[in-house]
């Protein structure tokens, strides 16, 4: 059931990515929603879910792009697995540690992704430090906000319901 939820979240992320990216394609696209979902799954469910989510999400992204199928999958697998280990070994329950994890995960993902392409002499990326930093920042903000929404919304709805019940009495 959890696997289905993660798969659906990745599918939704890809749908959003392909829809939203169209409107920001001119500048540097600052968010990789699939990576956000992979890190989120890893932090909440552990390394196995993280690596499987990374494999699935990365391979789907690879198959939809014009690059080599497997490079994005490998990068996201590593990131998902390590993020899952971080989630189980450390307390990552506050916005700041989560921000750091999302930021670091994006940098690691870019290092593996770009490194493999450069190593295999398939693409030249130059010095994409600004682009990677921008994407890491974007992913970290989206990730932290996603955590906050998931954690705060159910409580807020419950409080609102309770308040309404009191008013009626």
């Amino acid at each position, binding site marked *: 059931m959890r696997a289905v939820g993660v798969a659906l979240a990745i599918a939704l992320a890809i749908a959003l990515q392909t829809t939203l*990216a*169209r409107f920001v394609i001119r500048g*540097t696209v*600052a968010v990789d929603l699939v990576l956000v979902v992979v890190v989120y799954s890893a932090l909440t469910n552990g390394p196995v879910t993280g*690596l499987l989510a990374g*494999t699935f999400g990365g391979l789907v992204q690879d198959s*939809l792009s014009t690059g080599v199928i497997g490079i994005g999958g490998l990068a996201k697998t590593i990131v998902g697995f390590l993020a899952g280990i971080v989630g189980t070994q450390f307390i990552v329950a506050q916005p700041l540690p989560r921000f750091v994890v999302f930021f670091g995960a994006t940098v690691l993902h870019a290092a593996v992704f770009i490194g493999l392409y450069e190593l295999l002499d*398939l693409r030249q990326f*130059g010095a994409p430090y600004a682009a990677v930093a921008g994407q890491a920042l974007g992913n970290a903000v989206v990730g932290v906000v996603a955590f906050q929404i998931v954690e705060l919304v159910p409580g807020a709805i419950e409080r609102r319901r309770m308040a309404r019940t009191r008013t009626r009495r």
Partner: protein
Amino acid sequence: MSHVALVDIRQRAGYLFLAVMLGHIILISAQVNARSGVPVLEAVTFGVFAEVQRGTSAIVAGVRAVWSGYVSLRQVRIENDALKQQLAAAQFDLQEQRALADRSRGLEQLLDLRDRASLRTTAAEIIGAGATPDFRTLTIDKGERDGLRSDMAVIAPAGVVGRVVVPSGRAAKVQLLIDRNAAAGALIERSRAQGVAVGAGDELLRLEYVAEVSDVAVGDVVVTSGIDGIFPKGFIIGRVEAVEKSGGGYKEITVRPAVDFSRLEEVLVVVSPMPAAEAADGSGQ
């Protein structure tokens, strides 16, 4: 039972990680070419099995040689070998003549295509963008059913958009000219200086291989030269934004694309003349 298996997998996360990584490496190796131009996986597999085949073949050939050379009729074998060699030489000559004829036909067709001035296009609507931020692609709502093929040029009223890279039945993926792997033959409209417009991965293009002595100025219009066999000649790519001297015999030229890729909604796919590669393939069949 399934719960026990799940717990088992979770306890062996490291093994699962290694297995998945190995799977990815095999997958990548199957697609990436070695120095010989063959996929790495194929090269390694072929290399291993070739040695097995070599050994097996040597044993079989030895047994056959003993049998046919000494046990069987000796003279017949020698005569047969000579005839086989003659036949192989004749077949080789035939292949060579056929290849020459095909090549001539292909060149004739290409020249014929080049002479056609009018382009046949089909309009397509953009239905999506690339799934990953690292590749600049778009998805359009026309595919092979509408006559689209790989390497067909995609243009907009403002200028060149890119080329079709993956056509499916009812949709096609378009690689934008600003993608890092994209390139198009280009020339400066005013001075006719030739170069290659290459995607930089962001919103700008680089015009490469323009000689240091060429006449290029900021604001010059860059158009397609048509030498790549994909983009028809004379379509606007963009305007020169910066010109610098690199010192390596070529200028460093930055070009701002004429097309605003963030506001594209509809494009035109040039379905005729067909891409040069296809034309060459077609003539070879």
